[in-house]
């Protein structure tokens, strides 16, 4: 029995000495001691000595949460020659000393928790963890900058990696952007080489226009079904000449890539640098698919690549690790019509503005009003549309990127069109990041952008203008501006595909559908589910530098995993007491992992040897949830490390 002080974290409210004394007389306890920091190297060696000296078969540590240091103490036990699973931890910090102020009360509780741990330890059995092989291939879901960077880094280390991207091209949101802050280098110029690298890399396979259909298995051994949507164009034959798009008579579909600011044909490549450079047919918009008449693209295709008969294809592959890089979208602005987004074409989102600025965009980089194609003279930017909001249609978090891109937009406008007046209405300007604040200050000081503290209250489209009504909180006066263009900075939210993916991966998500990390500080790129890693905005709002850094970090974690030949499994798995099993299949039905099968086995029961149909647990598949143990009507199923007897012993100790 070892009781930790955790400096004053525990010792301040729990009488550590009293706890040590109280448990000394518990059954099975041979030695009880306490120390300043049990997790320190020095005390771990003293554990080793104690194990050797007293021939200990198990240890109880009264310390912080097992979620924090269970692995540490297990390692120490193993180093001392003990079975590492003969360690029990009484959580007397997070669940005792930190929440209770009254010392006697906290001490009493700590003693009870320690007793429960002793009671459990007395019933512990040495466990051996199983091993499983690792499939040396990774899956990256999402082909934006996060997914591309992760895949490139994994491939660079020599491992096979597949990218699954649901749109027809990789590139994601970054491909839509014009310039990037704070350096103002062109987004396409830095992204397209990476896209080309990803396409060219021998170790990377791209599955565009594809989605993950199902995920089975566990860390090191995932089986994933990928649905390749029918492109209706044979990628092998297509030369990417683009004649089909030119001739396609259906040209009225809003371009997703241009945020609806231009139209595209039914057979289309999203943008010129798309990878792969192979069109897809949007079957909803295609006249051939809708009416049966047309077939122009097939006729004009000299490569004979158009294939109306193509069907979705399911590809099944094995992976050792999976990276979620599903990215984000700006929120829909239907519920923010005080800014008249759906009432005036001249109220646009910042992503639409990116397309307007972009030389490859619908206006060739010429910033004009969508309504009349006139150059706007007065432009108003509205920050935090839906961010930091606790009402239903908003998001409670800060979207992080808007302050900086708005400074960029304002600056670009003033540089390109010095005659314009540019206003930015903000709540706070948040610029943590290298050279970020300097960038924002340049917008104010050098480019004369008018920053006004105060949220816009109403945008009224009238007389061809947008009457913007706001209040300047610092001057304490009302501001009314007749603007020509209003640019809204919508909150960003995880792509809707993330929710379904999270369920498939059993990777937990927060209330906003961002993936949760295993530890917010110490394990930021791993999901709590083993073998699942997180890259980019799917974990939380971030800009391009942060995304790329996280993408690299996720890759290094994947590489670490794939470099192992075998993985040590979790030994706390279900176990069937065969003589008790009545062969009812109830456990098989509730097992979420398909880890239980039934086998005809010789069973020795009350002196009789007979062949019976009994449950058998695949220890590699079992994740140790325990659903089967409670379902089992005969009590044959039990969970190692959390046996029925152990939990009841804990109950008894607590209620004593």
């Amino acid at each position, binding site marked *: 029995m070892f009781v930790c002080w955790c400096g004053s974290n525990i010792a301040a409210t729990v009488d550590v000495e009293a706890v040590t004394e109280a448990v000394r007389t518990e059954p099975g306890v041979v030695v009880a001691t306490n120390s300043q920091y049990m997790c320190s190297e020095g005390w771990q060696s003293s554990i080793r000595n104690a194990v050797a000296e007293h021939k200990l078969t198990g240890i109880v540590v009264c310390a912080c949460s097992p979620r924090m240091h269970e692995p540490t103490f297990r390692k120490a036990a193993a180093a001392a020659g003990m079975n590492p699973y003969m360690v029990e931890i009484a959580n007397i910090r997070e669940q005792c000393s930190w929440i209770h102020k009254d010392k006697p009360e906290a001490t009493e509780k700590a003693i009870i928790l320690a007793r429960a741990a002793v009671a459990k330890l007395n019933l512990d059995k040495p466990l051996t963890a199983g091993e499983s092989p690792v499939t040396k291939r990774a899956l990256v879901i999402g082909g934006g900058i996060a997914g591309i960077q992760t895949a490139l880094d994994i491939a660079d280390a020599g491992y096979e990696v597949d990218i699954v991207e649901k749109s027809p091209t990789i590139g994601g949101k970054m491909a839509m952007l014009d310039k990037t802050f704070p350096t103002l280098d062109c987004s396409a110029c830095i992204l397209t080489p990476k896209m080309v690298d990803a396409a060219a890399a021998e170790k990377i396979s791209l599955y565009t226009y594809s989605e993950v259909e199902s995920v089975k298995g566990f860390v090191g051994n995932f089986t994933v079904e990928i649905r390749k949507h029918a492109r209706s164009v044979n990628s092998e034959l297509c030369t990417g000449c683009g004649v089909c798009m030119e001739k396609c008579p259906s040209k009225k579909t809003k371009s997703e890539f241009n945020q609806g600011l231009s139209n595209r044909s039914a057979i289309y490549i999203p943008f010129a640098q798309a990878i792969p450079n192979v069109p897809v047919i949007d079957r909803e918009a295609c006249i051939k698919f809708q009416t049966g008449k047309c077939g122009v693209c097939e006729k004009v295709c000299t490569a004979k690549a158009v294939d109306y008969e193509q069907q979705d294809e399911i590809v099944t592959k094995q992976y050792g690790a999976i990276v979620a890089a599903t990215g984000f979208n700006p929120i829909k602005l239907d519920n923010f019509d005080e800014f008249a987004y*759906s*009432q005036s074409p001249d109220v646009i989102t910042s992503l639409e503005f990116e397309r307007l600025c972009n030389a490859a965009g619908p206006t060739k980089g010429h910033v004009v009003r969508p309504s009349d194609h006139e150059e706007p003279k007065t432009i108003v930017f509205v920050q935090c549309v839906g961010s930091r909001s606790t009402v239903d249609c908003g998001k409670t978090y800060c979207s992080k990127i808007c302050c900086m891109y708005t400074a960029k937009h304002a600056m670009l406008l003033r540089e390109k069109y010095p005659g314009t007046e540019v206003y930015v209405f903000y709540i706070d300007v948040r610029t943590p990041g290298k050279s970020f604040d300097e960038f924002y200050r340049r917008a104010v000081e050098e480019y004369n952008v008018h920053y006004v503290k105060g949220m816009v209250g*109403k945008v009224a489209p009238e007389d061809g203008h947008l009457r913007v009504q706001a209040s300047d909180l610092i001057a304490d006066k009302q501001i009314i501006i007749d603007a020509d263009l209003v640019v809204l900075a919508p909150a960003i939210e995880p792509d809707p595909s993330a929710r379904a993916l999270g369920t498939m991966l059993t990777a937990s998500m927060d209330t906003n559908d961002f993936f949760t990390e295993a530890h917010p500080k110490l394990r930021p790129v791993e999901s709590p589910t083993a073998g699942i890693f997180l890259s980019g905005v799917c974990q939380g709002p971030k800009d391009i530098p942060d995304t790329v850094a996280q993408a690299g970090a996720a890759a290094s974690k994947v590489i670490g995993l794939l470099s192992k030949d075998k993985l040590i499994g979790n030994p706390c798995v279900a176990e069937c007491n065969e003589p008790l099993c009545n062969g009812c299949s109830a456990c098989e039905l509730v097992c979420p992992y398909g880890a239980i099968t039934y086998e005809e086995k010789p069973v020795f029961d009350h002196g009789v040897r007979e062949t019976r149909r009994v449950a058998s647990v695949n220890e590699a598949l079992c994740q140790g949830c325990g659903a089967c143990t409670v379902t089992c009507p005969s009590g044959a199923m039990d969970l190692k490390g959390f046996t029925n007897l152990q939990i009841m012993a804990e109950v008894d100790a607590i209620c004593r």
Partner: protein
Amino acid sequence: MKFSYFPGCTLKTKAKELDSAARGAAEVLGVEIEELDEWQCCGAVYPLARDEIATRLSAARALIDAKRKGQDLLTLCSACHHVIKRVNDDMKTDADMRGKVNNYVQPEAPYEGETRVVHYLEMLRDNVGFGEIKKLVTNPLKDRKIGAYYGCMLLRPSSVMSFDNPENPRIIEDFISAIGAEPVIYPYRNECCGGYLALEDRGISKDMSSRVMRSAAKAGADSIITACPLCLYNLNENGTGELPVRYFTELLAEALGVKSEGGLARAC
């Protein structure tokens, strides 16, 4: 379809045409309207203060009466609708208020917000259906460009009123289309007309109402319709006078070919 109906004071006096046209149109639409027996003035203003009980009682009584009859409670005047709907929400969500009001009114069974409060426009949209109205229109109001004026009370706060999108509502526009006219969307249709200050501070009311009316006129409307007697009064008396303002039920009755005199006689 049968509804309990809460007309409210103004509809019995200065806004008889709002009421009578609504009754006449309902007949054509096959909607039965049963005026509550002993309704009292709703108070015209929803008491925002949570410690005000007395001012909520008349609305609560109307709600309880409708519950007793097992009917939805139909309202027409924006102010009545606003007050009754919000009091109903209090009765549903505020246990403290619920206890106090029940204590005062002493209904057979405690009232917990069971009654559904339906505005006449909501009834047209959800119970009758604008498509159905279109079919019943005998006298489509062709070539009329009508601006809908929502004002404040039907829409806000949307979390309670849940009437329509508070910043870009459609319901009256859809209604205008259903009766064969062309809806005109203008930005100030959901901004305040300044009604509460029409007595005390007429200057402000003039500014507000004029802005609304100018906004509608600029957008090309030839008239404005509303559901609120105070808005109507205020736009008429304090607006720019550019556009006529009428109740939406009057136009409905007109489109359905209902003679309003008959309705008037009954209402008086």
